[in-house]
């Protein structure tokens, strides 16, 4: 295009208005095409990254032992497998719960996660307390907070007895 292209209706810089509007249209089309292309690539990427938010793990009952294995009045740790472990999860699929067999025969299953920030609480048989190793949270035998930072009781999982076997409902990690 000759730079000397001048005319009566030419604006600043001597450009013909038609050419200006053509340039403006071209830059708009190019940017729009770029944006659409980027969005086309981005949505599966972002969707894939955020998919876990929409996916809900189906909880399941896990058998942890015969009723007779848990003496009344005792609180013991039971281990079982995640509801839906991925094939490569390995030992990370294992999880645990504190199972308390009440004197009246009822079972209570506590999450091992401290309600402060999720560290694993330990049952101290002598003290009859749950204690957290991270920030010193302490809970009574019924899971209610006794001292330290926790404000909420230990989360309980549903428990049932089927055919003399104790089963714990294992679902999502208790959050918040």
């Amino acid at each position: 295009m000759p730079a000397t292209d001048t005319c009566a209706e030419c604006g600043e810089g001597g450009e013909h208005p038609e050419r200006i509007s053509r340039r403006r249209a071209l830059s708009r089309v190019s940017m729009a095409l770029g944006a659409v292309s980027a969005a086309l690539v981005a949505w599966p990427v972002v969707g894939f990254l955020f998919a876990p938010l929409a996916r809900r793990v189906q909880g399941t009952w896990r058998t942890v032992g015969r009723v007779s294995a848990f003496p009344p009045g005792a609180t013991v740790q039971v281990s079982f497998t995640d509801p839906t472990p991925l094939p490569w999860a390995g030992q990370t699929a294992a999880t645990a719960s504190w199972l308390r067999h009440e004197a009246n025969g009822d079972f209570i299953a506590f999450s091992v996660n401290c309600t402060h920030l999720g560290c694993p609480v330990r049952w101290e048989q002598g003290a009859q307390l749950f204690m957290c190793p991270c920030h010193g949270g302490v809970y009574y035998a019924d899971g209610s907070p006794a001292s330290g930072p926790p404000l909420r009781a230990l989360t309980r999982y549903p428990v049932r007895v089927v055919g003399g076997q104790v089963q714990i409902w294992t679902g999502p990690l208790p959050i918040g």
Partner: protein
Amino acid sequence: MKRIWRWLDDRTGLITTIGRIARHLVPPRTGWRYVLGSATLVAFLIQVGTGIALATVYVPSTQNAYDSIDFISHGATLGHLLRGMHYFGASAMMILIGLHLLRVFLTASYKYPREANWLTGVGLLGLVVVMAFTGQLLRWDQNAVWSAVVAAEQAGQVPWIGAALAHFILGGDRLGGATLTRFFAFHVFFIPALIFLFIGVHVYLVLRNGISEPPEVLPMIDPQSYRARYADLLAARGRPFWPDVAWRDAVAAFIVVCAVVALAHWAGPPDVGKPPNPSLINASPRPDWYFLWYFAVLAKLPKHVEQPWFIVLAPLVAAIVLIALPFVFPAGERRLTRRPWAVIVAAGLLFVVGYFWWLGERAPWSPVFNAPALAVQGAQRADTLQVTGARLFHDKGCEYCHAIAGQGGHHGPDLTGVAARLDSAQIASRILGGASDMPAYVGKFTPEELAALIVYLRREHATTGKPAP
């Protein structure tokens, strides 16, 4: 050789361009305090090199990561050294980026026209912190597993979007096979890509706006005249960066590399902990040293402070303060002697963080689960009540939180000589009823046991040499 060199420069222009950039003029009297940024970059390059090498062997699956780290540490040729370098390189990066930020703050180099330099630096600081955290998790031992849970629980406390954030971090609504690959992808692809981008812009801005002159040279910033005065300064007293100034950066880089290699060789990488099995709950999760102060803050947060809001607001306020700084103070005085508040704020922050670091290292709030049984000495062994009391003090967990004669925890008061403060009835009431930060032990002792424990606690007073009231 020279011909190849000339050909390369003729066809690419790179040698001339790089040479011109390297010899750009810098203000006088920059000195050693200006090497911290390039030293941070050196630490980052160590991380890139060692990280790529480690990634050739590391297996980012929850089933194999632990074993692959173990192999890198103990089986692979040079693996021990490489892991050590990656660990100490990370530490060096955290320290150096912190010092660099402190230097820029103290010399007020964030003021006009270098606000964008500061902002990209703040972005880099955030990215480095994310790298430090995700890197610690890739060790995928017991500590890493629980750190992932703690991270998710912290995120989970954020009002409204907490659960979604936690699930985003874990890659689902539980810890599992998807968690580690997420941290891996962020640690080796996403965040490093952003760091490269930010470093590129940061260095470009340093070249475009020029390195800030020491405050003594041009003490006052006036946006109207600054650029002209800076240009005059360079014309009159500027020196080429290469090699007049760059030699100090080379010395600093050499020291950083030597320190990282030496520490990696002699101190070695951190031990890999117990296996990543969430059903092994005898764990005492601790963050790496750079987050230990925050770990302490969360332990000491007063109960009336709403933790969910603190977890969101504290980092948010920190980010807003850092971002707002160059816009609130864009001009004016740069000399430290005329900016007493800058000194007070910096010293105060260092003191507070240092104090929490020291606290986090000691973690006095954590129960001492492995406190040894207390022994009753000498003739008092014949006193069965005392022997029983000493045993109960240990077995009932009192000793986890209270020390006697130097043994036990530090969550509660030291009970050596408690009888000087409390009589038997008061001790009994405190034990049974508990206190604001102590569980009530009612129902956990028979009357005989309680009596024995009190006899022991009061006997303990006798050893301090003061008469019991």
